């Protein structure tokens, strides 16, 4: 007869250890299975790695120790605690788990046993995700890194943007030349401390990093990398790929665990007590999307308490309840409502949902309250828990959204201003506002969220830019047929003269439109920003129509491609749409026919794109025909900003009579904001990007800004004015810490930017990208 236990715990990782020590502490008959080492994932960490204890605000409740420290110290404490508590551990592999009646049959390397409860805490490190390119299994590619000191003076490629990749890259960079390949533009998935360290290393040139890049192949000591600027071939002695792991889905499904959807990345749904759809089977840690050690340990503790029938609050409960304070009835009355009212979040596991809610804000709104205004520069994401809102497209048209729907995704994904004002339509409406970083994290980890947002973005993009009156059902079917396509900077999307076969909606980035002028020279005409469409002229008629201009990516672009036949099918069902589109196309044709841009104006536009001015929300320009070099602008800037001028009049580039001082242009997609640990860089509602007092002077923004407009400065001690200092009465101020400083548009001055107001000749001006294009077009020959 096989042995029987109250609890069988599979996997001696942090969650398993916490569960086992709790069970042992309460003298519950238990067994802990481990096929490899205790805390195998930590064991596989590089030697002497410093292990963090994130999230720092979360207390640890388990019956065993864990705090930030070296890999060795943590492993030793785990072993000691397992022994001290008298945990019944068996070092063997569990090969099958099956439920028979009320009991689980656990088959393992040493036989079999039965258990009333099974806690599955096997993690995901067992099967790393491969590169999926030629050379992925060659000897020079590894998916773990135990001892970084084993490498010296090598060319090493680290692939990935998570904590493992960052830590490996940092450790290897001490004695090797390290290149990091990040598929995205940020280190959104990494712990804050790690993302700060890696940005500092990249900023100082210690590690080279390619963003928005992928590995195309690794062979013969060379790696081919696809970057937004094109293909790069680099020497590569070794490659370390840290791309996360594949969930052991088959094993879980074998036990009867259900998954919310067929996506390979989806995680099993569990209750708030981590119980799966199989009663008595609990799943913890990384398997349910919880990779952090402390969280996993708390889960182990909570599950055992739950099995013992002892009421236990999750460790983050107070944080969560705080979010509900403002709502009538508080947490109890509203938590379930929030959890169930928003279909977008239905695939989130209970812990993912809790984390999302802890980072979000719940608003109780009255009818007529404005949620946000058109052209605001906020980037949060809203879901409607109850009630309804209206999107104000113009004075005549309003779109109503109700419970379970969401909005604000356009600003979230494209980084642009809000495209419409949203007002609350019903008293007592409850809205959930989620920060951008949290939504990006969900997009990255919950496939259904990504898909839903992609489809919705396409739908809204089509609604606002091309087919405002088409029925939503038609647009939905069009969105499902549409494809996403990305372009690197400089890639040609289509060429003048080619037959047109598709329409492109620009989701991110901007596109340069150029045409051959009468002299046969390809001249930049204009640029089209995100949220608009290109290529509509050629697809409106059944017959083949050649493209009237060449479109290429001015910066890296994401586009939505709508095939000609799909668009025509929609248009044929709606004669009004067709009529309006033809009208717009004809207007553009007349414009094209009448304009023959000189090469000069094209060059001016090229200059603007090269200098990133098409991304500028507010840029300082100086008309050198008027500037008398008096430098009063710099004096004004210094006088209004603690003695340091944030603009360098002479330092910048110039084109014809336009001079571009080195000064913040308040980009639409501000790279400086990408990684600010204290979130001190914020975009104001009017678009200006400012640095708050909470700046810690880390310098991330200084290295992230491509235009060199941010400097670290000390507050210059105020003299108290010229007269006082002449009389020796000036007060001396203590020198503060160095902080990042840049143009803040004099947002606290009633009159506006001091530089422009102090220019005696009117040479200094501030313009946005739209006005810049006007300037360029006003210079047609």
């Amino acid at each position: 007869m096989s042995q029987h236990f109250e609890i069988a715990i599979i996997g001696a990782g942090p969650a398993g250890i916490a569960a086992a020590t709790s069970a042992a502490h309460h003298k519950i008959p238990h067994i802990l299975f481990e096929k490899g080492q205790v805390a195998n994932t930590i064991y596989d960490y590089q030697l002497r790695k410093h292990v963090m204890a994130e999230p720092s605000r979360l207390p640890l409740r388990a019956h065993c120790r864990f705090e930030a420290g070296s890999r060795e110290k943590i492993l030793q404490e785990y072993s000691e605690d397992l022994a001290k508590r008298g945990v019944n551990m068996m070092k063997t592999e569990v090969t099958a788990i099956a439920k028979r009646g009320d009991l689980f049959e656990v088959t393992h390397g040493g036989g079999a046993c039965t258990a009333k409860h099974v806690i599955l805490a096997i993690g995901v490190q067992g099967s790393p995700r491969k590169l999926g390119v030629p050379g992925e299994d060659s000897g020079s590619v590894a998916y773990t890194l135990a001892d970084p000191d084993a490498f010296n003076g090598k060319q090493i490629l680290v692939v990935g943007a998570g904590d493992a990749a960052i830590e490996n890259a940092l450790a290897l960079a001490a004695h090797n030349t390290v290149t990091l390949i990040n598929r995205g533009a940020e280190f959104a998935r990494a712990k804050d401390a790690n993302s700060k360290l890696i940005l500092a290393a990249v900023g100082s040139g210690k590690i080279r990093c390619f963003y928005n890049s992928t590995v195309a192949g690794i062979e013969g000591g060379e790696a081919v990398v696809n970057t937004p600027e094109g293909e790069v071939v680099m020497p590569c002695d070794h490659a370390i790929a840290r791309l996360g792991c594949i969930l052991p889905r088959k094993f879980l499904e074998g036990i009867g665990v259900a998954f919310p959807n067929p996506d390979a990345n989806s995680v099993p749904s569990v209750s708030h007590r981590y119980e799966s759809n199989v009663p008595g089977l609990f799943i913890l840690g990384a398997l349910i999307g919880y990779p952090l050690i402390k969280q996993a340990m708390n889960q182990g503790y909570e599950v055992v308490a739950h099995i013992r029938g002892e009421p236990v609050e999750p460790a983050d409960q107070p944080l969560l309840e705080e979010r509900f304070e403002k709502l009538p009835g508080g947490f109890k009355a509203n938590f379930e409502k929030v959890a169930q009212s928003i279909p977008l979040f239905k695939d989130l596991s209970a812990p993912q949902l809790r984390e999302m809610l802890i980072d979000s804000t719940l608003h109780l709104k009255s009818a007529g309250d404005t949620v946000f205004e058109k052209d605001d520069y906020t980037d949060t994401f809203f879901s409607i828990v109850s009630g309804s809102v209206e999107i104000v497209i113009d004075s005549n048209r309003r779109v109503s959204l109700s419970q379970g729907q969401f909005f604000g995704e356009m600003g979230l994904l494209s980084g642009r201003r809000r495209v419409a004002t949203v007002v609350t339509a019903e008293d007592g409406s409850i809205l959930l506002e989620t920060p951008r970083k949290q939504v990006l994290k969900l997009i990255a980890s919950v496939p259904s969220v990504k898909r839903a947002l992609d489809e919705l973005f396409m739908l809204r993009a089509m609604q606002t830019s091309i087919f405002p009156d088409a029925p939503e059902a038609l647009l939905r079917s069009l969105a499902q047929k549409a494809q996403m396509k990305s372009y690197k900077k400089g890639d040609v999307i289509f060429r003048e003269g080619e037959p047109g076969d598709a329409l492109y909606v620009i989701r991110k980035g901007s596109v340069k439109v150029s045409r051959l002028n009468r002299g046969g020279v390809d001249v930049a005409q204009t640029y089209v920003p995100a949220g608009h469409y290109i290529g509509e002229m050629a697809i409106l008629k059944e017959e083949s129509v050649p493209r009237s201009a060449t479109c290429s990516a001015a910066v890296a672009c994401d586009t939505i491609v709508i095939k000609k036949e799909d668009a025509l099918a929609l248009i044929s069902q709606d004669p009004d749409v067709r009529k309006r589109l033809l009208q717009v196309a004809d207007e553009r044709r007349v414009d094209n026919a009448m304009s023959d841009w000189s090469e000069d104006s094209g060059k001016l536009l090229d200059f603007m794109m090269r200098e990133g001015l098409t991304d500028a929300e507010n840029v300082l320009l100086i008309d050198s025909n008027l500037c008398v070099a008096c430098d009063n602008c710099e004096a004004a800037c210094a006088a209004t900003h603690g003695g340091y001028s944030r603009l360098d009049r002479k330092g910048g580039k110039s084109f014809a009579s336009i001079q571009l001082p080195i000064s913040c242009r308040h980009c639409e997609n501000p790279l400086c904001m990408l990684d600010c640990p204290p979130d001190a860089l914020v975009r104001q509602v009017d678009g200006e990007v400012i640095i708050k007092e909470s700046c810690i002077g880390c310098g991330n923004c200084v290295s992230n800004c491509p235009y060199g407009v941010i400097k670290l400065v000390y507050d210059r001690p105020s003299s108290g004015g010229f007269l006082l200092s002449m009389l020796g009465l000036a007060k001396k101020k203590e020198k503060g810490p160095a902080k990042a400083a840049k143009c803040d548009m004099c947002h606290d001055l009633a009159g506006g930017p001091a530089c422009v107001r102090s220019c005696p000749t009117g040479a200094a001006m501030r313009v946005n990208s739209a006005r810049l294009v006007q300037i360029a077009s006003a210079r047609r020959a």
Partner: protein
Amino acid sequence: MHQDTFLNYRRFKWLWITAAALVAMLVLYVVDNPLGGRSGGSLLGYAYGILAAVGIVWLMAFGLRKRSYHSSLGTLEGWLAAHVWIGIGLLLVVPLHAAFSFGCNVHTLAYVLMVLTILTGIWGAVNYSTLSGRITAHRGGAKDELLVERVDELQQQAGQLCAGKSDAFVRLYNEFCAPFKPSLAWMLFTSRQPVVDKKAAREMLSRLEGAEHTDAVAMIGLLDQRLDMLRELAEQARIKALLKLWLYVHVPASFALCVALIAHILSVLYFR
């Protein structure tokens, strides 16, 4: 690219305001027929005198406004426009105040100083509007420091060609490298540039033969480039100096005017 300058600011708003005020004052002056004839001491004369004095104080306050970087009281461009046109208007207000009587006294001294201030101001305004577009550093041209370096480089390259060459060759070098030391007045008031005596240079070149001749042509090319740069440097220095120089007269003259104005007011009040 730009529409508004400090002169045509808001479609010459301040020129029109000043002109209208002057016309009104002129009409009043003609219509006015005070006892004892028109003079600075008549009621209208006093009124115009006070107006002029207030105007002068306000014009001088421009120096303060220019440095009030936190001010939200109009733009500096607008202030400068008003400063220029109202300042020019004073040229007529003061004679109207004095009923066109001038003499060799402290009163006329104040007027003379005011005219000096205003004329230098006009000179500055003309410089501002004619010279600003000629600062090449603004137009993507090389910065002065780079030009100076390049001038030295060119001279060294040309100098190296002289090694082992004949006296005629070196004389040709010297012809091109004659020291260029413009006087201050030359710098400021003439845009003529130093030229090499082409005829002499041609003659010298024709006396050289073979390899020396080839090298000499190359050397002339280098030295001619150097001269172009020197001329450019001198021109830029001239422009920058002119954009500032007028202020060195304008500001002290305005303070002197202030002193004379106080003397004028006190003496008038005392000797009434």
